[in-house]
C-alpha cells in the first residue's frame, strides 16, 4: 500500500555524465567546424580576392593592373598576391593604368560597427591627399538600415573627394575625419551622416580616420616607390 502511494522519483543523472555529454558534443562541434573551415578557406580566399579586384575596378575603371604591397612600421615592402601580410602590417593595393601611371592606392580599415566588425576598403589619391572612394568588404550591419553605408548614394558621395591632407610635418592628418549629422557638413574632411543609421555612419568616420592617420603618412612618404610599382607583385586586371 505504502509502495503504491509513493510518488515515483525521477532519477537524477550523475554530474559526471552531464559534463561528459557536453564535453563530447563540444569536441564534436569543434571538429566539424574546423573540418569545414579548412575545406572552404581556399575558396573563400579566392572569392575575397575576386571581390576586391571587382571593387577596385568599380572605383577606378581605368585600372589595368594591381601592385601588392604591405605597410609595416619599418616601411613599405612588396608582397605576392596570395601572400599573407605580416603581423602588424597593413595590406596596400596600388592601381596602374595602361600607361603605368598610378590610378589610386587602396587600403583596408576595420573596426566595430553597429553589429559586428566592419571591414572597409578606401581609395586614396596620394598626390592630392584625398580619399576618393570607400567600399564595404565585410559587414553584418542591419539590412535596410546599417547597410546604407554602402548603398546610399548620398552617403557614398562623401567619398568622391574627402579631404585627408597631412600636416606640415607629414606625420598625421591636418584635420580629423569624422561623421556629422545629416545636412550639417561644412568642411571637406567631414562626412555627412545617415538618418536612421547613425551608429554605422559614425563608425565609418571613426574607422576611416584611424586607418588614414596610420596609412596616409607612409603612403605619401613612399609615393615615388609606389608610382614606379617595380617591387610589387603586379597582375593584369583582366577581371
Amino acid at each position, binding site marked *: 500500500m505504502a509502495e503504491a502511494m509513493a510518488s515515483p522519483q525521477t532519477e537524477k*543523472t550523475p554530474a559526471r*555524465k*552531464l559534463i561528459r555529454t*557536453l564535453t563530447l*558534443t563540444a569536441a*564534436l562541434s*569543434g571538429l566539424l567546424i574546423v573540418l569545414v573551415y579548412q575545406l572552404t578557406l581556399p*575558396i573563400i580566399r579566392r572569392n575575397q580576392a575576386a571581390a576586391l579586384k571587382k571593387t577596385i575596378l568599380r572605383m577606378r575603371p581605368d585600372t589595368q593592373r594591381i601592385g601588392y604591397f604591405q605597410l609595416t612600421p619599418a616601411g613599405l615592402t612588396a608582397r605576392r598576391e596570395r601572400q599573407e601580410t605580416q603581423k602588424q602590417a597593413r595590406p596596400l593595393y596600388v592601381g596602374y593604368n595602361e600607361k603605368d601611371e598610378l590610378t589610386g592606392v587602396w587600403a583596408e580599415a576595420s573596426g566595430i560597427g553597429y*553589429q559586428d566588425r566592419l571591414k572597409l576598403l578606401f581609395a586614396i589619391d596620394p598626390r592630392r591627399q584625398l580619399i576618393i572612394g570607400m567600399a564595404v568588404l565585410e559587414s553584418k550591419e*542591419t539590412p535596410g538600415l546599417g547597410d546604407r553605408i554602402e548603398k546610399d548614394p548620398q552617403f557614398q558621395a562623401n567619398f568622391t573627394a574627402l579631404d585627408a591632407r597631412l600636416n606640415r610635418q607629414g606625420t598625421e592628418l591636418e584635420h580629423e575625419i569624422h561623421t556629422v549629422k545629416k545636412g550639417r557638413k561644412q568642411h571637406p574632411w567631414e562626412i555627412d551622416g545617415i538618418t536612421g543609421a547613425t551608429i554605422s555612419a559614425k563608425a565609418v568616420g571613426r574607422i576611416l580616420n584611424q586607418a588614414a592617420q596610420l596609412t596616409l603618412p607612409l603612403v605619401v612618404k613612399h609615393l615615388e616607390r609606389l608610382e614606379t610599382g617595380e617591387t610589387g607583385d603586379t597582375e593584369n586586371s583582366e577581371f
Partner: protein
Amino acid sequence: MNDQPDFDMNLFLKGLWRENPVFVQLLGMCPLLAVSNTVINALAMGLATSFVLVMSAALISLLRNRIPKEVRIATFILIIASFVTCAELLLQAISLETHRALGPFVSLIVVNCIILGQAESFASKNGLLRSVADALGRGAGFTFAIFCMGGLREVIGSGSFMGQALFGAQYQPWVILILPGGGFFALGLLLLIYNRISPVSRSPQRGCHLLQELPDKKFGAGKVKT
C-alpha cells in the same frame, strides 16, 4: 517514442503545407521579413535554414538516447550553432555577395525557433529517417514561404525576378514592397491567400475548440494546437 524506420512522406507534406512553419505556426518571422526583398536572398536564406534544420535533426536524432534531459537544450543549441557556422562558411564559399546581402541573419539562424522547436518536439523523440523527413518538410515549408515572399516583393517592388527585368522601362515599381514595411504587407497578403485555400479555413467549423473535433487526416498527424 516512435522508432518507425521508414521515411514518412506524410511528415514531409505536413511541414511543407498543412503545418507550414510560416503560414500556420507563424515561426521564423525575423529572417522572413528581413531578407525576403529579393528572390536570391530569400532562396539562400531558406536553403541555409533547411540545411541546418536537416543536419541538426539528424544528429540530434542519432544522439537522442545519449543526451541526458538536464542538458538537452544546451546540447541542441551547441549542435545547431555548429551547423550554422558550417552553413555560413559554405555560403561564403558559394557566393560571397549573397553572404554579404544576408548580413547577420545567417548567424541568427541559431536562434530560429523552427529549428530548436523541431529538435525538442520531434528529433529528440523519433528515429533518424522520421526526423529527417520532418526536418525536410519544415525546411521546404520555410523555403517555400520565404520564396513566395521574395518573389512577390521583387516582382512588384523591383519589376524583376532573380535580377531579370520583367516589365520593361515603363513599369513604375512599387518600392514600398522592398522597404521593411512592405514585408508586412506581403506577409499579410500571403497569409490571406493561404488561409483561403488551406484545408482548415475551408472547413465550416471555426474556432480552436471546434478544430479539435476535425478528422485527423486534415491535420496530418492529427495534433492540433489549442
